[in-house]
């Protein structure tokens, strides 16, 4: 079966002019002297999208995601290479692009659908569905200029997603709208997937790609840096993002954390853990001077900075007395509940009232969680499914 989209050796160069010269006088004055820099937004990108596949594209801001989508939809044209698409395309690069504030919702539905390349007949057939999807039954004959931004977005999405394209291209538009509507959009996307349509999906919400994509591609500086199963690429993405995030250190260093080690079930240092395994966080210290009543603590944070778990010796009701010289404290976690992802461990030693911080290491070490299951979410909750018949 031929590919739905073939992106072959595509490069896109933007000229960044040093001055924005746009009038004839300036053009003549600066003729031949206008300097520009080449900026390659895409470099030699090769992607084949199979029919019926849902492809996710992730990457940091400025990595070329939107440029790529615009090339696929023929808004921009690649500087080199070529793109072949098979089938009708509806692109949601911006919801409600082309809405006319002075026309009613109804008129805009027809106008917008025809901009996307769909006929009046098709829209006639789908009109009620579009309106009910957008939940705008009461307002469809009002001018769009009186719509709230939420209504505007809902109508834009409803039109694009209900016109039945062969290839649906979505750029970061799910981030808008309230949660209930987002959920509805995702359900609708899943329905489109079941119809065997091809979807290309760009988002910053990388966990969403794990939920709905068959395959994910990560772009960085205009190049494909990783391609494959969603889980793999998303983990790679998190790692890449984290190397940028900073770790911090503070304290008066009367007690110094010499090392933070993560030990697995066998007592060996490790950076890879399976869901359900145990972990020991060993904090080795050395007190330069005698320190009375210190508190040792640690926490586990995910890549977004959410604390998954944290505790300290005070919370556990432990008094350590006065410490001096080297020593170690071990936090023993019997079962790690986290699913797939990258996590960071911070460790700290401070006084009981936290008025004096001896040594605090923020996100000092990291480890990866792996799970053998495809379940989604942050935590693994043991779950069995029972099928009950109606008489119960």
């Amino acid at each position, binding site marked *: 079966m031929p590919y739905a989209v073939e992106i072959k050796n595509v490069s896109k160069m*933007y000229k960044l002019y040093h001055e924005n010269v*746009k*009038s*004839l006088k300036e*053009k003549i004055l600066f003729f031949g002297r206008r300097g520009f820099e080449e900026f390659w937004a895409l470099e030699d990108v090769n992607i084949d999208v199979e029919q019926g596949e849902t492809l996710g594209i992730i990457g940091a801001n400025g990595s070329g995601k939107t440029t790529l989508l*615009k090339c696929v*939809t*023929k*808004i*921009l*044209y690649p500087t080199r290479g070529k793109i072949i698409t098979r089938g009708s*395309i509806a*692109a949601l*690069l*911006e919801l409600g*692009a*082309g809405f*006319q504030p*002075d*026309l009613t919702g109804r*008129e805009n539905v*027809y*106008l917008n659908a*025809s*901009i*996307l*390349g769909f*006929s*009046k007949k098709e829209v006639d057939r789908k009109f009620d569905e579009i309106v009910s999807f957008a939940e705008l039954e009461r307002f469809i004959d009002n001018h769009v200029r009186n719509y709230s931004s939420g209504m505007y977005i809902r109508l834009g999405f409803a039109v694009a997603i209900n016109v039945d394209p062969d290839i649906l291209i979505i750029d970061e538009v799910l981030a808008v709208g309230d949660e209930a509507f987002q959920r509805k959009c995702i359900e609708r996307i899943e329905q489109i997937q079941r119809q065997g349509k091809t979807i290309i999906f760009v988002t910053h919400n990388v966990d969403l790609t794990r939920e709905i994509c068959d395959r994910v591609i990560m772009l960085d500086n205009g190049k494909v840096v990783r391609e494959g199963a969603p889980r793999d690429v998303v983990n790679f993405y998190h790692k890449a993002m984290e190397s940028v995030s900073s770790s911090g250190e503070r304290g008066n260093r009367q007690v110094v954390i010499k090392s933070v080690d993560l030990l697995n079930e066998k007592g060996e240092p490790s950076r890879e853990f399976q869901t359900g395994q145990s972990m020991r966080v060993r904090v080795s210290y050395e007190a330069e001077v005698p320190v009375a009543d210190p508190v040792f603590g640690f926490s586990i944070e995910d890549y977004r900075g959410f604390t998954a778990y944290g505790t300290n010796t005070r919370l556990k009701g432990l008094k350590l007395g006065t410490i001096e010289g080297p020593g170690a404290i071990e936090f023993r976690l019997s079962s790690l509940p986290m699913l797939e992802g990258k996590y960071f461990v911070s460790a700290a030693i401070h006084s009981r009232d936290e008025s004096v911080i001896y040594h605090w290491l923020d996100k000092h070490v990291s480890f990866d969680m792996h799970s053998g299951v495809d379940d989604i979410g942050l935590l693994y909750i043991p779950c069995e499914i029972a099928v009950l018949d109606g008489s119960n």
Partner: protein
Amino acid sequence: MIERFKDLIKHRELLWNMTFKELRVKYKRSVLGFVWSFMNPIVMLAVFSIVFAILVSRGSLSWFSVYLMSGLLPWLFFVNSTTQAVVSIVGNPGLVKKVYFPREVLPMAAVFANMIHFFLQMLVFFAFLLIIRWHFSPYLVFFPVVLLLETLFILGIALFVSAANVYLRDVQHFVDVALMAWFWITPVVYPINLVIGRFRSFLPLYLANPMANVVLAWQFIIYNPHKYGPEAAYVSFWGLLGTSLVAVAVFLLGYYFFHRTERGFAEQI
């Protein structure tokens, strides 16, 4: 080129919708709405009739206001189409940068909206002519032919200036100035016999202006000069033939130029 035409035909509904959008949006939020389209020619007719009846001694043309209208309305069709088309691409960045569709729809919709506008004004004008029991010329059957000729020429110009304006914003200012000058080398307010009388040797040059031939053709079929003033009766066979060829050429070249430059639109605006 053929591919482009096919794509355009596929999007004909969009062209239609955009044309109607132009018309609808123009009069949205006004109480009288479409009535304004009719008001324009009615007021023009009234003013011209009064002014020329009172101020200007009856000259050679017995119905000067009718003569004026029969050339002025087609001229305004040309001017309004061109000035609206020239900003049609740069004025729609939200669409051009965010959605794919054949971009020629934008200038073409501007032209077609003005064509419908022109048609409505012609209706009012003809209603007036019926009321004053005008003797229509049998050549009026050529109305659609002349309209086609003028529209083709306007489309070519519209496609060219709308695309050029994306790369060089001076075009829209140049168009304003050029149209003003163009107006005076076209026989709208003065009869052609003035030109023939005084600048006979320059006549071929004068008729090299396609709009002169178009306007002359309109005057010929509407004004009925055989009855109301033979001095306005001038159609040059060679001028019209040349103009037809020029109109086709301008349309094709305008389309070609548009097609060659449209790939950069989304980046340039």
